[in-house]
């Protein structure tokens, strides 16, 4: 904003939300409306003091607020801190009509309002098949069995004595962006890409536990993970993935896992779709064949145009999305903007992110913020001056294997429009002259 020009006491403050009339003005292409509104409001304040204030400057500066003139709250007013009261808009949300019952459903993380690469624990997306539980950790057990020399039981006490590691990784549901295979069907990045989160996890490497039980190195080619909840969800992991970077984690972002994310124990399967990150983990089995579980045979299967179902499509391929500006937002005025977003790859590190403002005709390479870690979200930023004309913003990530994030038309040419899972297409946000940003598909 331009406070010097916009000074004056204004109700309602246009710097907050746009009301219906203002939106109409915006949509009619009058994008100078904000300035107009300020001037009109300022003129309407007839009182001499107000006039003086208007000339002298911004009342947010000139009139000392209460917090500068009084005593604030003491320590431990809240034993566990909470976000500011002004941040209530950023919440996990369900997508209407997507699922029918709340205990077998998903809530999406508000990517449009998040910064950096770490997802705050309370905003991590949720996916439950049979509701969530808050399990007493002193009664939780992990069993490792199957093709091992010694089947073992571990308490949380036991696990926390073992050599621990801390790693940052993204988790993405295989069905993230599923609603967009055919058409644009949801308005904001929360609903297009919000089944995505990234945290620092602490736990013990799966390899440590498998070693401890003496797993069969020759024939034990697969690992089953099973949850302790009602669904006792099961998923098969390849032994190679399990030994490489698989983890049994109890902590997330420096504290214990949240119940919705599997407290007190979950599997971390870097690069692999979220359903494999079994929550409330109770059992690990070593075997010589995959298990063909419900979420490997009936769901999380990708339907090809000829009716064939691809099973065991696990890896989340390279993908990116601009989180701001993004669908459902309005640009305040023409001029400078920081375009920012997230990039990730289930096959390793992100190498580069390019951004286009003209629907893919011309691209510029964005700045990548550190850290750039394997199978972890990577934040990108790029300068952009909006000239007030129509624009289509896109980002395109390239990972260290050289794979370039595809266009939706390329994905559809191979997989059709009905495969539900693994849509990693380039996302387009259309910026109208009015400043309104909408979800659009080009290509």
């Amino acid at each position, binding site marked *: 904003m331009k406070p010097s020009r916009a000074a004056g006491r204004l109700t309602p403050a246009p710097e907050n*939300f*746009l009301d*219906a009339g203002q*939106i109409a003005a915006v949509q009619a292409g009058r994008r100078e409306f904000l300035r107009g509104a300020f001037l009109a409001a300022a003129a309407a304040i007839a009182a001499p003091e107000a006039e003086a204030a208007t000339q002298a400057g911004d009342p947010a500066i000139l009139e000392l607020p209460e917090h500068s003139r009084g005593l604030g709250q003491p320590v431990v007013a809240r034993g566990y801190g909470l976000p500011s009261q*002004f941040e209530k808009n950023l919440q996990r*949300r369900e997508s*209407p009509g997507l699922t*029918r*019952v709340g*205990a077998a459903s998903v809530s999406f993380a508000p990517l*449009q*309002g998040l910064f950096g690469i770490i997802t705050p624990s309370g905003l991590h997306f949720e996916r439950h098949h*049979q509701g969530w539980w808050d399990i007493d950790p002193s009664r939780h057990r992990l*069993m490792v*069995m199957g093709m091992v020399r010694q*089947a073992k*039981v571990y308490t949380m006490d036991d696990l926390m*004595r*073992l050599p621990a590691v801390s790693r940052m990784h993204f988790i993405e549901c295989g069905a993230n962006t599923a609603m967009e295979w055919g058409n*644009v069907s*949801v*308005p*904001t990045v929360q609903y297009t890409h919000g089944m995505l989160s990234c945290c620092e996890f602490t736990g013990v490497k799966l390899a440590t536990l498998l*070693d*401890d*039980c003496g797993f069969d190195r020759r024939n034990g080619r697969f690992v089953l993970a099973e949850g302790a909840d*009602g*669904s*006792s969800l*099961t998923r098969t992991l390849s032994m190679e993935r399990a030994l*490489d970077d698989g983890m049994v984690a109890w902590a997330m972002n420096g504290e214990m896992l949240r119940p919705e994310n599997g407290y007190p124990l979950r599997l971390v399967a870097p690069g692999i779709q979220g359903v494999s990150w079994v929550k409330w983990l109770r059992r690990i089995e070593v*075997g010589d*064949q*995959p298990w063909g*579980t*419900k979420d490997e*045979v*009936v769901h999380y299967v*990708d339907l090809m145009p000829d*009716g*064939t179902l691809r099973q065991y499509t696990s*890896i989340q391929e390279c993908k990116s999305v601009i989180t701001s500006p993004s*669908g*459902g937002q*309005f640009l*305040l005025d023409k001029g400078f903007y920081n375009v920012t977003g997230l990039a990730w790859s289930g096959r390793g590190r992100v190498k*580069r992110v*390019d951004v286009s403002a003209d629907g893919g005709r011309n*691209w510029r390479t964005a700045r990548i913020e550190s850290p750039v870690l394997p199978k972890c979200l990577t934040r990108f930023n790029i300068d952009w001056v909006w000239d007030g004309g129509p624009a*289509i913003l896109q980002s*395109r990530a390239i990972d260290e294997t050289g794979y*370039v994030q595809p266009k939706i038309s390329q*994905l559809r040419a191979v*997989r059709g*429009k009905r495969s539900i899972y693994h849509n990693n297409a380039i996302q387009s946000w259309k910026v109208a002259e009015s400043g309104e940003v*909408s*979800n*659009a*598909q*080009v290509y």
Partner: protein
Amino acid sequence: MLRSISRAWVPAFAAMALALAGASAALAGPYPGVGRSATPAEIAAWDIDVRPDFKGLPPGSGSVTQGRKVWDDKCASCHGTFGESNEVFTPLVGGTTAEDLRTGRVKSLVSADVARTTMMKLSSISTLWDYVRRAMPWNAPKSLSTDEVYAAVAYLLNLGDIVADDFVLSDANIAEVQARLPNRNGMTRDHGMWDVRGKPDVANVACMKDCAVEVNVSSIFPESAKGAFGDIAQQNRGVGATRSGRGDKAAPALAVAKASSMDDVASRGGCLACHSIDKRVVGPAFKDVAAKYRGEPGSEAKLVEKVLNGGGGAWGSIPMPPNPALAESDAHALVRWVLGL
């Protein structure tokens, strides 16, 4: 095996391991004193998975007739009498033909407008058996006996015209059923998304300048659908580079994750499997229940009785099953809460 333990410690561990040799198998690994061996009974209690090669399948049997009874008592309230209901989930059966049984490939998977049922996708019968045993009924998982699982699976196979009315499914003949599954040949693992080094199936190139693209907006979020997602303005921060519009008042703000304590009781009591506060699920919306009985004398006692013992007829053809695990005091509290909504 000792690779993650610092070298200086190794001799101490070695000495300890020697001293403990033969004492307990659990102490003999690379991390002495951590964990213990699992007992056979513990392994049996948790090792419930059944693989496509039938490893893990317990002996037993169940007929289609028995399965119909299990189904009517324990499954139909959510899935419909014939597994056809899509109120809770996509239908379990339907969409397969006699021709599919022969070829082992479900033809209707090719067409765009067919709801994909469980039976259409199922390539291994073990998957269905394993899942019903571990997870169904949804609100009382792992409560079925082994024979009831066989029976329920037999009934679903019968609904799918895969086995006859007089069929008895057992561990001895389940492999024959496998050989008849309509989509037994309909899957593939030939793709690059299992192996981290697998070959991708699309190859984009990173063109940078004057790229040949037709910039046509082929699809855009429809104005008419905006209201369905609640007030988008309330889903963005009030400061920053962008704002969002507040205009369209179409729908009330979406219910965001909220957990009042009674919600919690209702959730733990299993009520929310079938009810929600403001929409019909399997049972009526709790708000509708409140509206219907508001001010009616004796309604609380009547509803408590119904919640505990089940019953139907007030809201449609689906009855509410009994909720025997619920404490009477909780039933009172829940009904009072529902009526106050």
